[in-house]
């Protein structure tokens, strides 16, 4: 098994120390930092996503796999900084919507997007429309990804989109929404650009939209 194949395996299994060790090993063998992403990290997280969708992986397994992936990317990122071919696919401002403190689902989506090459600006939980507008402007974001786990807080997604519109930023960003009570129909009704029924769908959607930017 090549080092990249091995790295992919240990990320899927959530072994962070091994992920770091194999990344260092690969670099010492002469692999370029940029090769690790398509060669190991992205396919590993795609596989994690697949297993999550099959219910084979659950929240803890996904979180430890993401942590292992981060062990590798923390080493690699400084090495690819400034390399124009390794610019992020896009910048995503994400958060759980105002009134909602649920964090886990949003974190999983953020980690999966990060592994897929997006730059993530995580605003945390209970995020007001004003904070979203401010972050989009400051970070020159391409995407806004919003999560809600309560039917009663989901309405604040609409307020966030309206705030982006009145700030004149709506045309500059794609808005993705998700969370247990959110549906495709709801996403359309509030004027979002897309709905992801799970983290895998969110990543697919962001990739598709990024390709058209």
């Amino acid at each position: 098994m090549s080092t990249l194949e091995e790295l992919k395996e240990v990320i899927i299994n959530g072994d962070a120390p091994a992920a770091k060790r194999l990344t260092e090993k690969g670099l010492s063998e002469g692999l370029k930092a940029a090769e690790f992403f398509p060669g190991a990290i992205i396919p590993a997280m795609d596989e994690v996503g697949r297993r999550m969708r099959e219910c084979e992986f659950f929240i803890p397994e996904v979180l430890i796999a993401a942590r292992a992936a981060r062990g590798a990317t923390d080493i690699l990122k400084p090495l690819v900084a400034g390399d124009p071919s390794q610019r992020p696919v896009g910048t995503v401002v994400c958060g759980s919507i105002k009134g909602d403190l649920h964090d886990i689902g949003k974190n999983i989506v953020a980690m999966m997007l990060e592994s897929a090459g997006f730059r993530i600006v995580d605003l945390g939980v209970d995020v007001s429309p004003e904070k979203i507008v401010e972050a989009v402007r400051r970070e020159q974001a391409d995407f806004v990804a919003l999560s809600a786990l309560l039917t009663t807080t989901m309405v604040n997604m609409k307020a966030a989109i309206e705030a982006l519109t009145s700030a004149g930023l709506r045309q500059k960003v794609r808005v993705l929404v998700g969370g247990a009570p959110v549906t495709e129909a709801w996403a359309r009704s509030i004027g979002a650009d897309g709905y992801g029924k799970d983290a895998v769908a969110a990543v697919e959607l962001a990739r598709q939209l990024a390709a058209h930017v």
Partner: protein
Amino acid sequence: MHRIIVKPTGVELRASSGTPLRDSLFEQGVEFPCGGQGRCRGCRIQVLEGEVQVNAAQRERLSSDELAGGWRLACQCCVEGDLVIELRQWDAAILADETPFAFVPRAGLGVAVDVGTTTIVAQLLDLQNGQVLAVRTALNSQGRHGADVMSRIEFGLSPQGLEELQNLIRRQVGALVGQLLRAARVPGPEIRDVVLVGNTVMHHLFSGIEVELLSHFPFSPSRAGLEIFNARELDWDLPSEVPVRFLPCLGGFVGSDILAGLLATRIGESGDLLGLIDLGTNGEIVLGNRERILCASTAAGPAFEGARITMGMRASAGAISQVAVVDGGVQCHVLGNIQATGICGSGLVDAVAAGLDLGIIEPSGRFAKGRTEWTLSPPVTLNQADIRELQLAKAAIASGFHLLRERWGGAEPVRLYLAGAFGNYVSRSSASRIGLFNYPPDQVHPAGNTALLGAKLALFRPDSEDGSCHHLRRRVEHVSLGADPHFQDVFVQELGFSKCAPTYQEEIAL
């Protein structure tokens, strides 16, 4: 008018063209968990004869095979012709309370009501001798607007929603009181007192208090105190001056049902640390003694009630209610001793505990050796997603309990009371095995419907106390779990199961 035949009960209904099926079926006890928004699959029916239109919401929630097989979401359908449909829901098992209790006699009769989100239990008492003269139970009529507190709040925020929910519950409880009087053949003027308990949302909706503040973080009640009405303003068939008291809330979603639980279990008088867990869709947890009482609520979801489980059902005929390991396999007990048709909450907890002991389920919750489902008793099977649902419910309770113990400096209660129907039926050793809590069975006491018992005790409080229980309430501290920075970490940690059964179980087996 069109004719609708509802199977398996065989009831025949009549409805005009364009009538929403929801209105007709609600009368038959069908529940609409998401409030009829087409967001869940809880109200699905199978159309055996006749035609019902499919809309976008149904295409999103039902597979093309299901649609072709006649499956529909009742909440999304209107009557357009004669129909024969089959329901997939069952009657609820509702827990009353028959616990003997100490009291100071007073003249006349009283009514105690536990206003649950799902079910309502009302008892008529002779205040002279404490005897229960009649009991009435019903599904909460607000159920047509959603099964859980969040969907009720959502409806309560819509125009006229609050008024509608208030009218529904006031009318229903009034009718139950009337039924109690007729059943016991006693005249209304004998009634001296009516006491209601329920969670904060039920308290607000009965009292007509705005629920906006309960709809988002930090989930604080608008008005938490005792609410006093008289029979006249409620339009109940009782002498106009009879007081009707809805006991006060403790904080957040923790309402007078738990306050009543404190009265019933006397946690606030104990020298030892005691715990109380009410295992419902919204789980409430109390940990305290005479020094200090902590309480919290945690959203466990409906898995304990058999909902959102592929073959889940309420605890009624046909439900697997117990699963035991026998000779390396499992043996199921089915309520009513008939062919199994589904599994209820207590059966699910037993099954997962058995699966862990048999090595069929790994400590991560995943099926071992590539298995995708597990047949318990044909045709009833568990699949991977079902176990995940239980893990979420278990982790919500266990992490809440964990954090309250942490606030107590790591103290462990000497006794744990389980309140509510599920707590009454669940096997204590299976609940320990899946890590809902971790105490030997003799330390865990099913306490029945402590909300109703506490409401009855409140009927006997001396006149100097109006039911505001301010001495007790002052000592109760409500902990907002969601705001605790450790909550998410603890929650993730509690999602898994322990590798082996706790050792005390073997001692008991010997």
